[in-house]
């Protein structure tokens, strides 16, 4: 995928503050030619600011932006070969659809005949043929979004920036547009940098996802990688659901960690880099709810090498397509373990308090960031998970 001539767009050590608030802390990121990269994160995480810095609407306090190897940090937005699809479309209300889409070409003094041809092409690309003379003020949100897309695409930018473009649409339309955008991006081969706070949207469309939190990129990787191998509890929790627990390293020998889960359950785990997990350190670890198998009889066999946690059933919620089972493996007052299962045996309501066993395969236990050192005196600070 990576072309031999390096990344298309590079963000190098970009820091940005507004007043006393630092919104970006030394962000570095390479964007490949032709990829669909998503900036994912909660509001205020710096994803939109990063996009605005790429577009040229904000200047970074330090760091550089390189487009095709050229430093564009100091260039004004109108000299950058990137176009933006704005969150609230920002269509010019005094222009028709045609004139909105033609705007960029008119600025570049493209001959009118060619403008006409290219506008019709761009409109057919976004399925708005025949809407040329419409006033944008009379259009639905979905249609306006398409006009905004056509307007940004018509100049064939090196990079297309999309700032939560589907945020204002209803769920059904958003799903449709997600697939359409992805198809369009593949067909045109234009690099998309997409900002969203919706993890499902990011998973649906992206080649790679950069997960932003509090002004830093917590993790960068393909959707599957982000989901299967989250590096931090924030990523594990933000993308999909996760049970996050703490685990103390008792002993690390020959790639095998001996861990104490929530100061209650001891087990052994094979890791790739045992040196990263020194004894005495407390780490966070995550378990995906759909990777937890719930048994109600102890004699049911677990998968080989799975960790079996005896627990008490706290609650069983039937959702139609799946069931949510809340277990208490760490005693009353301890953390709850959520399991999600499509197994039909969970459809029937079951009395809270009945015994249950949670089977977790060791490869489904995701080691995350360290949270501190274990001291004998105090139990580790409770870590909450939403």
């Amino acid at each position, binding site marked *: 995928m990576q072309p031999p001539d390096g990344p298309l767009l590079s963000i190098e050590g970009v820091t940005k503050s507004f007043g006393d608030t630092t919104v970006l802390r030394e962000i570095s990121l390479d964007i490949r030619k032709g990829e669909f990269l998503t900036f994912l994160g909660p509001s205020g995480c710096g994803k939109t600011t990063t996009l605005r810095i790429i*577009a*040229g*609407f904000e200047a970074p306090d330090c760091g550089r932006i390189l487009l095709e190897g050229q430093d564009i940090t100091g260039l*004004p*937005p*109108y000299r950058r070969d*990137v*176009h*933006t699809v*704005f969150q*609230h479309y*920002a*269509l*010019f*209300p*005094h*222009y028709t659809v045609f*004139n909105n889409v*033609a*705007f*960029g070409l*008119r*600025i*570049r003094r493209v001959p009118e005949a060619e403008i006409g041809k290219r506008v019709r092409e761009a409109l057919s690309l976004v399925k708005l043929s025949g809407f040329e003379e419409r006033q944008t003020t009379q259009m639905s949100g979905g249609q306006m979004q398409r006009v905004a897309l056509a*307007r*940004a695409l018509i*100049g064939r930018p090196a990079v297309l920036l999309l700032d939560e473009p589907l945020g204002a649409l209803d769920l059904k339309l958003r799903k449709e547009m997600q697939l359409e955008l992805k198809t369009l991006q593949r067909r045109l081969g234009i690099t998309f940098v997409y900002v969203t706070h919706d993890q499902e949207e990011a998973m649906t469309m992206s080649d790679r996802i950069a997960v932003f939190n509090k002004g830093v990129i917590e993790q960068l990787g393909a959707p599957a990688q982000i989901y299967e191998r989250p590096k931090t509890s924030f990523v594990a929790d933000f993308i999909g659901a996760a049970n996050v627990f703490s685990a103390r390293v008792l002993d690390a020998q020959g790639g095998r960690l001996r861990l104490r889960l929530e100061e209650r359950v001891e087990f052994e785990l094979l890791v790739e880099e045992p040196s990263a997990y020194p004894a005495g350190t407390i780490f966070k670890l995550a378990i995906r709810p759909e990777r937890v198998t719930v048994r109600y009889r102890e004699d049911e066999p677990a998968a080989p090498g799975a960790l079996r946690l005896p627990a008490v059933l706290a609650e069983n919620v039937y959702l139609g397509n799946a069931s949510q089972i809340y277990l208490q493996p760490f005693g009353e007052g301890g953390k709850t373990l959520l399991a999600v299962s499509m197994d039909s045996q969970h459809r029937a309501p079951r009395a809270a308090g009945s015994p249950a066993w949670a089977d977790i395969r060791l490869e489904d236990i995701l080691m995350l960031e360290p949270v501190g050192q274990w001291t004998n005196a105090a139990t580790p600070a409770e870590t909450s998970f939403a």
Partner: protein
Amino acid sequence: MTQTAEAAAENLPARRESRAEKLLSWLIRGASPAASHLLLLPAAAWLLVFLLLPVACLLALSLATRGPYGTVVWSFTWANFGRALNPMYLPVLLRTAAYAGSATGLCLALGFPLAYYLSFYAGKRRETLLVMLMIPFWTSCLVAIYSWMIILGRHGLLNDLLGRLGLIQAPLPLLNNGFSVVLGLVYFYIPFMVLPLYGSLEKIPRAYLEAAYDLGASPAEAFLKVTLPLSLPGVFAGCLLTFVPCMGDFLTAEFLGGPRNFLIGNLIQNQFLMSQDWPFGAALTALLVLSLISGLYFYQRLEARQIEP
């Protein structure tokens, strides 16, 4: 928990509405279209008694004749209009239009950059600057005019200052000419230009400008293609609010214009107060109002036309 709350709510005694409250509710809710129209009543009554009736009287008056000693003789005649359309008065009308037009143009030229600054760059100083803009309204019109006379007079402050600085040999004729009238008009009416301009500039989402820059427009192009067209409603409104009162102005011309620069407003004023010829004054007024209304009509047609890219 919720059950007890509901029970408690049920046990509360129903609050009695007073009669006045009931009436107000009935009006405010607009229960029926007829009732909601009642909200228009106070303003409509005011306009009927103090605007429409006087205008009707004026129109009736314009068809009457002047009797001896300035009395009004109620006879039906078009003679006043014939007199008013006499080419003799044409220069007055043209002068008025020219002064009002120049004042409006000058207000626009001075006001647009000011409004632009207020909207785009003033930041926290905006409120202060807007209040300062309104200060001329707080001083009595006559005080302001006399101040201008003191400043502009032959031996006024300005001539004195320029003379002391050695910039002029003889005093400049600053008062009693077109310049002083237009200056006065601009002074009085510039807030009427700036406020609508500011309002329309303020209403332009800054994302439109970002979109223009993003698509390759330089700041100048973005201004010409986005900011300016979107501010046109404010330009139109500002020009109207300035031009119309300038056309009817008589105080500025009376005091700053001298005897040779009287405007249509002064002419009308003279008919009522000096010549005691109320019917003729009424005919002149009717013509002025009529020409302004027809002018406005064409102006609005122009405004309604779609703005070409």
